[in-house]
C-alpha cells in the first residue's frame, strides 16, 4: 500500500489536474491509456514471465465489446464498460490453454490469436454485427470528460493492484512460480492456477482499457483497435522501465511515449528506428530495465 500512496496516487493526481492547464486532452488520455496497458502487461509479464505479444487482442476485444454493447443493446457507458471487460475476460478464458506453452511459443501463439480475433471482427461477412472493416461510430455516448475520468479510475485501480502484487501473498507466490516453478510447486504454491488468475486479471485490465478507449475515441476502425503497435508499445515501455516494479512501467510510458510525441507523429519511421535500436540496446546491455540501474546499487525500487 505504501508504494501505491508514494508512487501511484501522485501519478493519478497529476493526470487528474493536467487537463486544467493543458488543452490537448486526447494526448493526456493516450498517456493514461498506455499507463494502464503497461501495468496490465506488467501484471502478466513482470510477475509470471509470460510475454503476451498479442496483448492488443484483449484491448480490441474490449473496444468491440463496448461498441457492440452500445450499438446492439443501447447500454449506458458504465454498463458497456463492464461488458468490455467481460468480453476480454471471456477471450482470455478461451485462450487459457495457451498458457501450457512456454516462452517464445506462447508469445507467437498469442500473437496469432490476436490476429485471428482481428480477422474475424474485421471480416466483411460479419458486417451486420461488427460493421466489418468499415469501423464503428458511437457518437451517441461521446463524453470526453466522463471517459477521461473513467480512465483515471481504472488507472488508480490498476496501480493499486500492481502495488499489491509486489508485496501481497498472491503476488509473491506468482513471483516464486516465475523464478522457479518446480521449487514453488514443492513449497505448496498452486503455480498453474495462480498463473491463470494473473492472466485473467491482465486481460481484464486490457479489456477495460479497450472499452474506455472506445468510449473516448467513439469513432474507430478494427485496425486501430487491433493495432499491433499497441502491444509493442506496452511491452517496450514496461521493459524499458523495468518489469515487476510499480514505477518502472510508469517511467517507461512518460519517457518513451513523451519522446514518441516529440518526434514520432510527423515521421513515424524515425521513431520506429529509435525504438528498434532501443530494444536491441536494452536486451543486450540492460535486460532488466532502468530500474535495474538502481536495484544493482541496493536501492529498493517501488
Amino acid at each position, binding site marked *: 500500500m505504501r508504494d501505491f500512496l508514494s508512487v501511484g496516487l501522485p501519478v493519478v493526481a497529476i493526470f487528474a489536474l493536467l487537463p486544467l492547464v493543458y488543452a490537448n486532452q486526447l494526448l493526456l488520455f493516450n498517456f493514461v491509456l498506455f499507463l494502464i496497458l503497461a501495468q496490465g502487461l506488467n501484471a502478466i509479464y513482470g510477475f509470471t514471465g509470460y510475454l503476451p505479444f498479442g496483448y492488443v487482442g484483449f484491448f480490441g476485444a474490449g473496444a468491440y465489446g463496448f461498441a457492440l454493447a452500445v450499438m446492439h443493446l443501447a447500454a449506458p457507458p458504465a454498463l458497456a464498460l463492464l461488458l468490455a471487460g467481460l468480453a476480454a475476460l471471456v477471450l482470455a478464458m478461451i485462450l487459457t490453454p495457451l498458457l501450457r506453452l512456454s516462452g517464445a511459443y506462447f*508469445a507467437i501463439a498469442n500473437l496469432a490469436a490476436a490476429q485471428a480475433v482481428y480477422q474475424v471482427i474485421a471480416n466483411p461477412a460479419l458486417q451486420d454485427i461488427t460493421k466489418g472493416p468499415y469501423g464503428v461510430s458511437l457518437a451517441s455516448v461521446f463524453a470526453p470528460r466522463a471517459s477521461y475520468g473513467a480512465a483515471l479510475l481504472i488507472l488508480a485501480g490498476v496501480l493499486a493492484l500492481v502495488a499489491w502484487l509486489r508485496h501481497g501473498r498472491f503476488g509473491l507466490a506468482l513471483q516464486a512460480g516465475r523464478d522457479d516453478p518446480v521449487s514453488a510447486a514443492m513449497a505448496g504454491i498452486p503455480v498453474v492456477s495462480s498463473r491463470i488468475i494473473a492472466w485473467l486479471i491482465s486481460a481484464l485490465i486490457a479489456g477495460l482499457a479497450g472499452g474506455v478507449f472506445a468510449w473516448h475515441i467513439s469513432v474507430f476502425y478494427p485496425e486501430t483497435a487491433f493495432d499491433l503497435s499497441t502491444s509493442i508499445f506496452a511491452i517496450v515501455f514496461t521493459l524499458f522501465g523495468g518489469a515487476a516494479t510499480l514505477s518502472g512501467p510508469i517511467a517507461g510510458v512518460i519517457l518513451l511515449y513523451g519522446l514518441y510525441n516529440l518526434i514520432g507523429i510527423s515521421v513515424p519511421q524515425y521513431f520506429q528506428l529509435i525504438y*528498434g535500436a532501443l530494444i536491441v540496446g536494452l536486451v*543486450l546491455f540492460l535486460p532488466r530495465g532502468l530500474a535495474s540501474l538502481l536495484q544493482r546499487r541496493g536501492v529498493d525500487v517501488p
Partner: protein
Amino acid sequence: MLVHALLGGVIYGCYFTLIGLGLNLVFGVMRIVNLAHGDVLMLGAFAAFFLFHLVGLSPFIAAPVVMVGFFLLGLPFYYLVVPRLALAKDAEMLSLILFFGIQQIIEALAAIVFGSSERSIPGRVLGVGPFHFLGQTLSRAWVIGAAIAAGAVIALYLYLYHTRSGLLTRAVMASRDEALASGIDIHRISARAFAIGLALAGLAGVFAPFMLGSVTPAMGVSVNLAAFAVIIVGSLGNPLGTVAGGLIYGVGLLLMQTYFSAWADLLPNLLLIGVLLARPTGLLGRRVRLA
C-alpha cells in the same frame, strides 16, 4: 477446380517451405527465434528489385548474388549479437524481443530508404507462357519458385547429411553441451548455420515479387506469421520437417482461397494455434530432435 487447388497448393507449399527453412535451421541450431526473418526476406526482394531495374540482372543471376551477400553479412552479424545473448538466463525469450527490435530497425530503415510504395518485377523475366500439367494450366512463376525451393531443400539436405560441417551442425542441434564437450567450435558452426538461414531467406526474397505479389517494406510481419505457421505445423527445430509444414500450409491455403475465400487469411493463425494446442509437447517440448 479441386485438382487445380491441390496442385497449386503443393507448388505454393514448396515456396512456403523455402520461407520457413532458414528460420527453422536457425531455431534448431541456436534455439533463437529470428523474428526478423520476414524482413531479411523483404531485403532480398528489394535487392532483386534493384538488381533487375538498375543493373538489369535477371532473378536467376540475382539469386546467387543475394545468397552470397547475405551469407557474408550473416557471419559478422552472428558474432556481434548472438554470443552476448547466449549469456543471458532466458536467452530464448530475450532473442524474441531482441530480434523484434532488429526487425523494427530493418523495417524503419527500409521505409526511409526505399519509401513505402509497392514494387514489383514483371513476371515475363522468368520466361513466357504457362506450364501445362495433368490437364491444368499453372503459372510459370509458381512452378519456377517451387523448383528453386525444392532445389534449396535438397541442397540443405546434402549439406546436413553429407558434409563434415553438416555433421557438426547436427551434433550442435542434438545437444549443445555435449557438442561443446566433444570439442566442437560451437560458435563457428552456429555462425555458419545462421548465415545459411539468412541466405535462404534472401533466396526466398528474390522470388517473393513473383510468388507473393508486390514488395513493400512492411511485408515482413505477415511473412513471419506464415513462416512460423509453417515451421510449427511441420516440426520445430528440424529443418527438413519444414517440408511437411509447407505442404500442409500451401494446400490448406489454396483450398481455403478456392472454397472460403473471405476467411482465407485466418488459416495461418488458426493452423498455428490449433497445432500448438493439440500437440504442445510433441511439437514444442524440449525433447531432443535429431535432424
